[in-house]
């Protein structure tokens, strides 16, 4: 009921090519996350699917029907905007009912659906308030409610959590994931935050400069990144890259080791260096180490490690957890 297929979709703004040709398959019921640095074209891609931008060439197929030229409302997609885009002079009830009113639905049916959506999203007590009287999280839920009532074949989220504070963001992340389980509707979610991508997605699409760098489940991307960009983007803190002698020894231009894949020792190891900043979080310890060849790496150890600024330390990458990259940055 909610499959979306992009075939060679291209988009130019004037002379600037923003999306140089994308092929993508989104299956029914999937939670797909577009992730990438800002300006990578992920929001544009979402707006192309929504129909808010016209494609320059290519095809967009929704539920087996070619919707490339169809108006946004006809595509049966619902979108949640970054700014929530609530109608400020309407009550929450009217905001949620607006798409139903536009569809010419009977008043009782409208009310039934609004009540249902409000029940799901804990908004029942706020139905008569204006958006201006709500908190950020509540506004977010109203925006989602307005999307739910239409019973769309897919939801589109455009960085919906970026205006919320950190604690609320974690809550809403869980709520949206639960909503996806409950509704089992296709969701396409755009974010620049790789933590959101890793925690929520069934399938992550990593974008850079309009190109799809890699598509896969979160752990697939974590375990076998196709190139240096994906390797560096997925995982927190970022992967460490080492070039020169260490890499040449393994027959690669550069090698990558994730911070959590270093074994630490004060006596011996593959690389040695001096501890710069040591971040003791209790559950984890992050060590910023300046290796003897000048490379800066971050190493993560579970629990508390008694190492401090200026200490000498030796790091050894775990067996089988070293990623090798060639000159072009492709994984070997």
């Amino acid at each position: 009921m909610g499959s979306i297929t992009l075939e060679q979709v291209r988009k130019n703004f004037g002379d600037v090519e923003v999306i140089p040709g994308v092929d993508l398959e989104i299956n029914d019921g999937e939670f797909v996350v577009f992730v990438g640095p800002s300006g990578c074209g992920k929001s544009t891609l979402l707006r192309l699917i929504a129909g808010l931008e016209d494609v320059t060439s290519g095809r967009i197929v929704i539920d087996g029907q070619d919707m490339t030229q169809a108006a946004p409302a006809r595509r049966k997609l619902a979108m949640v905007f970054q700014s929530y885009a609530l109608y400020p002079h309407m009550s929450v009830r009217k905001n949620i009912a607006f798409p139903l009113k536009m569809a010419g639905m009977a008043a009782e049916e409208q009310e039934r659906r609004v009540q249902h959506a409000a029940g799901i999203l804990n908004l029942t007590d706020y139905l008569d308030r204006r958006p201006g009287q709500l908190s950020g999280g509540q506004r977010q839920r109203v925006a989602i409610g307005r999307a739910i009532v239409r019973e769309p074949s897919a939801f589109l989220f455009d960085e919906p959590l970026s205006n919320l504070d950190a604690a609320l963001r974690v809550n809403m992340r869980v709520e949206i994931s639960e909503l996806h389980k409950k509704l089992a509707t296709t969701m396409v979610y755009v974010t620049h935050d790789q933590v959101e991508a890793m925690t929520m997605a069934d399938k992550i699409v990593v974008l850079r400069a309009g190109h799809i760098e890699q598509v896969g489940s979160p752990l697939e991307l974590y375990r076998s990144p196709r190139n240096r960009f994906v390797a560096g983007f997925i995982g927190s803190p970022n992967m460490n890259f080492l070039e020169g002698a260490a890499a040449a020894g393994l027959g690669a231009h550069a090698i990558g080791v994730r911070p959590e894949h270093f074994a630490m020792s004060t006596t011996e190891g593959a690389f040695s260096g001096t501890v710069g900043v040591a971040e003791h979080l209790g559950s984890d310890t992050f060590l910023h180490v300046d290796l003897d060849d000048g490379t800066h790496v971050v190493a993560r150890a579970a629990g508390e490690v008694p190492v401090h600024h200026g200490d000498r330390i030796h790091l050894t990458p775990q067996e089988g957890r070293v990623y090798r990259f060639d000159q072009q940055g492709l994984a070997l």
Partner: protein
Amino acid sequence: MATRHQNTLARLMVAPSVLLLLAWMIVPLGMTLWFSFQSYNLLSPGMERFIGWTNYQYFLSDPAFWTAMANTLLLVGGVLVITVGGGILLALLLDQPMFGQGIVRILVIAPFFIMPTVSALVWKNMFMNPVNGLFAWIAKAMGAQPIDFLAQYPLMSIILIVSWQWLPFATLILLTALQSLDSEQMEAAEMDGAGALSKFIHLVLPHLSRAITVVILIETIFLLSVFAEILVTTNGGPGYQSTNLTYLVYSQALLQFDVGGASAGGIIAVILANIVAIFLMRMIGKTLE
């Protein structure tokens, strides 16, 4: 942080200008009130005397007064309808991306910079003149009888001239309001299946309501005292057909030299303006809540 001490000092410092402004207002108002109870005609100097409410009785029972009242309200109402309606349409048009946008916007705003006397003269002689005017030429070109606008439809012609002057103001205010409309809201409405008309009714108009009230308030204040356009074009005539309250007061004072009667008319105009202002402030209070 303003302390109490600083507040007192601040009040002392602004006091002179406040007092000056107060005197500026209270002295003419007081003199008008004083004259309105006097028999005071410039043709019989030295005969001034107190006559109580007689001036008011005469002014209010003058058949010209009620015509002037009706004309004033028609003029204000007509111009408001045309400028707000036309202003919304023009603002919607000018908000569209188009070639030469900057120049077009300046051209649209230009009439506001022309002084009322000049624009009224231009309209009178170059457009509405039944012999040489542009409208007459168009009518003749189509084989129709030219219309003598200022003689046949004097009030309507003045409404037209004044509207032309105030349309840019309304357009400017409404255009800026329109540009502050969140584009994501419009996109959300588009996703929700709203057509152009629904978007206008449910999103654009409510968003503009505040700007519209501001336009109505400011224009009303100025339109209640339209004078130059009438003096230059019709002189209030034919008969009293285009006389508004301001012009009636003028003719009472400076054509009939009856200062007392004119002062009474002036006080009535002040009261009328205040009644209108109270209504408008209520309206604004409601939209600004």
